[in-house]
């Protein structure tokens, strides 16, 4: 700073509309943010989250739809598209909806019931922390796309020429309708957040309090809903994790996700052998790539498709 300012700058300085408070960084609110930052991974997203591969889920859901029809996903009478475990959400991405990604780091929700409840920075209520944003699951699995991806995979050495030929032969005998359903299923994924207060014992929120929210901007606040079971999450939506509070209790033992039950129950009979082969063909290259990753990793379809 120069010792003597021109009068204009002095006048501007005196009109300073927001003077710095040097103690603000030690306030309780600032310390909460500091702790959250220090708890996050310096190389990427926050620690306590992992995103599973879509591979198993895709297999199970594909088998389900082939067996009992696509209408099931819309009505979900058996709760198969929701995870029974606290901290886990099964969700679907709406590829036709994009929203501006919210950046509010910590939000508060006065109410957490129903669809489209309001949350914001200083609204009071349950606290949630920003973890990630919903990402596009990738282009649709059309036949031309899959054939092109196969050729690329062979060219890049990701699969052998022999395997490429086999996959192409499998692909040739399944219907376009099957591929369309499969493409729709690729929208789905699971997200698991480790919910702890001390980094040791898993906790669960009280009944009715979602552990993961998906939020879209809405006027001056956010419109949120439970991520678990949301089949139309817009691309760019914020994914928020609940912050444990005093009324949280030890989490019950983990139960098998519906995807696992479905895989065991259905994979044996409903799909045709050719369709099953394509499902496994799809899964094979994915198991060789990094399709399951951290919060910030996009599960790119090009790594899932051959």
């Amino acid at each position, binding site marked *: *700073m*120069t*010792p*003597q*300012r*021109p*009068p*204009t*700058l*002095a*006048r*501007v*300085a*005196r*009109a*300073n*509309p*927001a*003077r*710095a*408070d*040097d*103690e*603000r*960084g*030690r306030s309780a*609110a*600032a310390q909460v*943010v*500091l702790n*959250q*930052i*220090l708890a*996050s991974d*310096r*190389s*990427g997203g926050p620690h306590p989250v992992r995103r599973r591969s879509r591979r198993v889920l895709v297999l199970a859901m594909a088998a389900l739809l082939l067996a009992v029809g696509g209408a099931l996903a819309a009505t979900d009478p058996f709760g198969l598209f929701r995870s029974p475990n606290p901290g886990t959400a099964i969700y679907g991405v709406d590829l036709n909806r994009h929203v*501006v*990604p919210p*950046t*509010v*780091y*910590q939000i508060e929700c006065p109410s957490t019931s129903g669809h489209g409840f309001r949350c914001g*920075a*200083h609204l009071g209520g349950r606290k949630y922390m920003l973890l990630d944003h919903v990402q596009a699951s990738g282009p649709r699995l059309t036949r031309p796309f899959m054939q092109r991806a196969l050729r690329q995979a062979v060219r890049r050495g990701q699969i052998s020429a022999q395997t490429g030929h086999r996959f192409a032969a499998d692909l040739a005998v399944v219907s376009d309708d099957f591929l369309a359903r499969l493409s729709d299923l690729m929208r789905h994924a699971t997200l698991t957040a480790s919910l702890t207060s001390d980094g040791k014992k898993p906790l669960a929120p009280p009944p009715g309090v979602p552990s993961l929210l998906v939020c879209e*901007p809405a*006027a*001056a606040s956010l419109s949120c809903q439970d991520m678990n079971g949301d089949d139309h999450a817009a691309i760019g939506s914020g994914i928020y994790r609940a912050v444990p509070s005093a009324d949280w209790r030890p989490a019950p033992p983990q139960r098998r996700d519906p995807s696992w039950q479905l895989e065991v129950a259905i994979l044996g009979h409903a799909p045709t052998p050719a369709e099953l082969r394509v499902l496994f063909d799809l899964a094979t290259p994915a198991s060789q790539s990094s399709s399951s990753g951290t919060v910030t990793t996009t599960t790119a379809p090009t790594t899932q498709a051959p």
Partner: protein
Amino acid sequence: MSDVETRFSEIYESLYGRVHAYARRRVGSEAADEVVAETFMVAWRRFDAMPREPLPWLYGVARNVVLRHRTAAARQQAGRRALELEREPTDPSEDPELWEAWSQLSDGEREVLALVAWEELRVADAARCLGCSAPVFSVRLHRARKRLERLLAGPQGAANPISTLTEVS
């Protein structure tokens, strides 16, 4: 707590207020917390790149966060003047002529003036914050100051009220 965490915490606690004031002047109180949190999150992830004198660097990060925030806000609220520097309701009636002239400056002009007058940065540090050289910043500052003076003087360039102000160290 590791050494890195300790060092970061010290910087966070000592500079939080400055960065918060910077953000508050540009996006208002509501969004300032969010901008500051995101700024320090970036700082944490890029802590290795943080220079020994971190404040101008932090202002640079905060500036990018603010720009992104404004872009998002502008998309969400079409028609609202999201790029206008927000005036806090602390002293709206104080020096109305200045605010009137201020509102006629460009975003760039306001930014260079604010970095020196409100953030109290030296020219070299302010230039670093904007990613330009010190001479270039000096030229921008000079032009912005002259433009503000002309606006304050009115269309005829008559009696300039600022000439009667005392200097502020």
